């Protein structure tokens, strides 16, 4: 009787048997890596906007307050986008012939709004409220990143549910005093955890409720 298999077949068979065992775990790992990747989360991706608005210039160089444009942020769930007229308060005097700003002027002239590409997107079943975060000492840059350095806006964080939970489970590392909420250059204090605990009590934050499903999903 001749041999059916060459000696190397033994090794192949062993490798196959082991991979049946290990393969599923590898696949799960790959899946997790993909869901964490910018491909899925959209993190750090810049989009083409009708007007290449630079936060670095407006919020950084000129140090315009966030609320000047995002006026609803303290009152509403939605931070608000500046109406064209807000842009034109300055740009009716400055850079009045800048081609880059043509869409803004056109918007005002035709009374048609500017269609921006949304950068920070949450699914429709997530109910995020800017105003309560502002009221409870979460600063803009905590979630939006250092916008004062971004020539074009991008999503600085993953915005996954796990990312939200990391703060909702324990907000102390991120809490700021009221007067620091809009400060783009705020850095956590050296004794931030201690300060955070104090602020937690100061803002009357009930952390137990923060991880309820109904806090964000309705």
């Amino acid at each position: 009787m001749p041999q059916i298999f060459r000696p190397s077949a033994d090794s192949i068979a062993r490798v196959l048997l082991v991979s049946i065992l290990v393969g599923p775990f590898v696949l799960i790992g790959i899946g997790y890596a993909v869901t964490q990747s910018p491909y899925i989360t959209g993190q750090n991706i810049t989009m083409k906007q009708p007007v290449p608005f630079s936060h670095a210039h407006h919020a950084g160089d000129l140090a315009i307050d966030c609320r000047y444009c995002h006026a609803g942020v303290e009152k509403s769930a939605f931070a608000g986008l500046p109406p064209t007229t807000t842009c034109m308060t300055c740009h009716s005097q400055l850079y009045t012939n800048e081609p880059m700003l043509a869409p803004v002027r056109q918007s005002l002239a035709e009374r048609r709004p500017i269609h921006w590409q949304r950068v920070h997107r949450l699914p429709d079943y997530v109910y995020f409220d800017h105003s309560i975060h502002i009221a409870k000492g979460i600063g803009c840059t905590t979630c939006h990143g250092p916008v004062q350095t971004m020539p074009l806006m991008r999503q600085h964080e993953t915005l996954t549910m796990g990312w939200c939970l990391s703060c909702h489970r324990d907000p102390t590392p991120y809490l700021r005093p009221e007067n620091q909420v809009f400060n783009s250059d705020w850095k956590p204090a050296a004794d931030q955890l201690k300060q955070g605990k104090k602020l937690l009590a100061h803002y009357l934050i009930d952390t137990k409720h923060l991880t309820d499903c109904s806090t964000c999903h309705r």
Partner: protein
Amino acid sequence: MIVLLAEFTRPEALMRAARQAQDAGDKVLDAFTPFPIAGMAELLGARSTRLRAVMFAGGIAIALGAFATEYFSAMLDYPINSGGRPLNSWPAFMMFPFAIGIFAAAVSGFIALMAETGLPRLHHPLFAVEGFERASQSRFLLAIAVLHSETGTADAEKRLRNAGALSVREAEP
């Protein structure tokens, strides 16, 4: 050392030949049979196996791991009130570790079986031996090593033939 491979038609004959060979001072190397022959393993001095211990250990380890996962997820990582039941609803947490533990035991056992038997072994010198393919069907092969002199081979072969061997062949050790 010379290895003889004797072919029998009945398991009793093989057992008889094996005992005779052992009594004669030859070493019974192995038997290749279409089904397990009672007493053969003992005759070969097959050690009591750790296989069951491995299965037990593997099963228990995974079951404990499963319970730990449940405890960690339901108590520590994301405690959620489900129908007013306590966070550690241990009676309800038993089923998952149980089921997966048994499966884990089976897999551990399979791994141990492969380890103990050296399988998979797709290429083996024995497969090249003429007539070996009948060992999985209806013939009973006995491999003995004749440890002493060359003259012993003839004796051994004769003994095997007397015991009912259809054929006796020399094989590579």
